[in-house]
């Protein structure tokens, strides 16, 4: 079954013609070359492929492209140069949150979704907010600290 799916990726209108069961991650990585979206597990467990779908954090490896018709999708490429995206990326870089880096684009997306809904989270809320994103390197402490830093530095930015 072929169908035409229209959605927006990083504000760009995207038309997908093909099997609607194609995974969103494959469309993003293979067709749109958005390789900041990483595949860590292929079953929605690790969060490396996290993107925003209509403002909500989702794992693009278990979403069929047919399910995003009409949606707005943001990937790391779409937020990294925005004021909010830069705020998080800078905090991660300076705060020592990055080691091997494979989970980090997804982790930045999780931080973004968290700060959008809770501009000044405490440690517990941050740990909750990234609990769907697995990191094997850092033990999470410096990621948590970096998100706190982004929240403090961003200040009113996150309340907009």
């Amino acid at each position, binding site marked *: 079954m072929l169908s035409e799916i229209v959605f927006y990726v990083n504000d760009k209108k995207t038309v997908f013609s093909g099997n609607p069961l194609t995974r969103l991650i494959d469309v993003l990585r293979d067709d749109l070359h958005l390789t900041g979206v990483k595949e860590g597990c292929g079953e929605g467990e690790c969060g490396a492929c996290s993107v925003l779908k209509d403002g909500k954090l989702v794992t693009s490896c278990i979403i069929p492209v047919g399910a995003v018709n009409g949606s707005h999708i943001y990937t790391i490429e779409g937020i990294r140069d925005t004021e909010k995206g830069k705020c998080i990326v800078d905090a991660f870089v300076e705060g020592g949150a990055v080691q091997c880096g494979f989970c980090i684009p997804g982790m930045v997306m999780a931080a973004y979704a968290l700060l959008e809904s809770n501009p000044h989270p405490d440690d517990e809320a941050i740990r909750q907010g990234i609990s769907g994103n*697995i990191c094997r390197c850092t033990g999470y402490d410096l990621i948590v600290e970096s998100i706190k830093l982004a929240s403090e530095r961003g200040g009113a930015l996150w309340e907009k």
Partner: protein
Amino acid sequence: MPATGINDRIVRVDAAAKARGEAKYACDYTFPDMLYAYMIRSSIPRGTIDSIDMPNLPEGYYFISAKDIPPEGKNELWMIAKDWRCFADGDVRFVGETIGLLVGPDRNMLKYLSEHIEIKYTEMEPAISINDAIALKGGPIVGSDNVMCQLFVEKGKPMEEVFREADSVFEETIETGFQEHVHLETNAAIATIEDGKYTIYASAQCPFYISKAVAGLLGLEQKDIVIKQTTTGGAFGGKEHFPDVLCGPLLVAEYKIRKPIKLIFDREEDMLYSVKRHPSKITLKTALDKDGNILGIDGLVYYNGGPYLSGTYVVLQRGVFHANGVYDIPNTYVKGIGIATNTFPSDAFRGFGAPQTLFAIETHMEHIAKKFGFDPAEYKSRYFLKKDSETITNGHIIERVMLPEMLEKVATASDYWRKSKEYKTGEGRGIGISFYNHGGAFTGNGEQAIIKAHARLVKTGDRVRIEVGSTEMGQGFQTTLRKIAAATLGISIEQIDYDNPDTSKVPDSGPTAASRSTMIVGRLVQRCGEEMKERWNEGDFSVEKEYEHPEGHPWNQETFRGDAYLGYGWGCAAVEVEADKLTNEIKVVGIWSCHDIGHAIDELIVHGQVNGGIVQSLGYASMEKMENRKGYFKQTSMSDYVIPTSMDFPKQEWSLVENPYEWGPFGAKGMGELVFNGADAAYIDAVERALGITVHKIPMPPEDIEEALDAE
């Protein structure tokens, strides 16, 4: 640009590109006309291959197997030995052994075709556990007794004499399980031909290991194969020898097909069909006097190696050399055996054999202390190694040992002494403590005799390029090494370049393993920098240095006697837990650590390593259960094999002691593995105290805790 000082807080050089999603990992590379590969593997643990029935392959699809190796080549991967075959041929020895590579343009078609390959086997009874292998279940896999490798060390008096003098003997057997690396980036490599040379892009720790391992498949020499390391998304030992197992078949496919070919494991493949940490079975028999003082320890250490040697002998050696932990045991004899089974070959994993024996000795010492009514920390501290103490290999500790200071720091931060006394055993709350070390770099004179590491600095104008074979895999070496070069030269880190290694362009600095990179390669770069600084005004030039072993520290690699390690990292960790007595869920409420790594080159990077290593170790002890049933791993995905999330462990408190190492750059020693080596034992100590149980194995997820409670 201001010069970078070694203690300046700087920003990690690779962080921004990674956080912005711009760093290119192996999966992100594409080439014109690129094909994909899918590995066809053995589906039984042991037997002979009777037939392989292939479906009709569409045009442009290939099946590559042992028969595609040219006559001048040999079907073997040269790791430490050459026993691991590139392709199974005639027989198979473990589930997941490579039989062939399907290659073609469409990944879905490859999967479809793979499901239509019919391989018929005559099955044999496999040996899965260490006990199976000792009992020669199904007949020997290796030699006549399944012993792949063995060694012993001894110190002091003969053990018969020691046990004759003993008032009592305390004996127990402690077992540790498989552990899967779960680097977030799965194994991946791409083979192609560039400038007429076979070229492999690989997610790997040791590019020179790959070219050495695979060249012989085509009858070529190591220099004929070019390896380019791609940004590596975690490794932890899992990409030390194992990339050879991907790159070998890929090279043979490249020889036949001559187009770019990409092989990426999905998570299930990476979970089921990759190397793991060696499971162990360690028996410690300790001779004691009437007051509970240790007269001597007799140890027997088994590591499950799988059917091929890979890194097992070296892993086992390190295990045996760490078998007395951080303690000066007056008399000891420890024998280690690497035993062959029909499980996936075990190989390097952060700690490299030391975590198993360290867990065993820590837990054993703690059990003895409790038996005689001593506080475990106090009891263990009586035996701390000191400068000049004789080691288990009859060498000496040649540095100051700061364990007493480290214990004090951790005890103060955690309020250990009060909690240890006040928390009553079995009442749901417990604190545990452990001590550990890790010998830096290759054992003995291996750095000089085996590795012969080289490093080079190249000056062009006011920029300096570092040329080494060492890799960044997340541990921060791109930053650490640049910082060492900049601080030595008295220039800014911005003026230093250091690319992911390409084996055709850089000298072999030895593997990125054994916590040796900062200590050994960092020191080489420092020496290059010292000369370059003196000659700075000579224009453009390069300086290359080879490793030189400090004199006066003999080592005999035949008898395993002498100074095994010149500089150890040292550690102390405390863990506090609360146990839910209904569900047996353990909640960790506090983690404290102190480490001696000489001098920290970059404290923020060290902070991240400490946190990450300790969480991996706590996962190993608590939740990371990988079971092998009849040759098949039971845990196939990240939902069955659970590794720690952000919710599992609390924020850590950590500290360092300053103890500069004479032969390290700016006083630095190794640290990447050290921080894995001890939190497991502290956790188990805490769990035992909280629940009033005695533990003899890890991991201990809730269901195993329940079993232990029932046994009490």
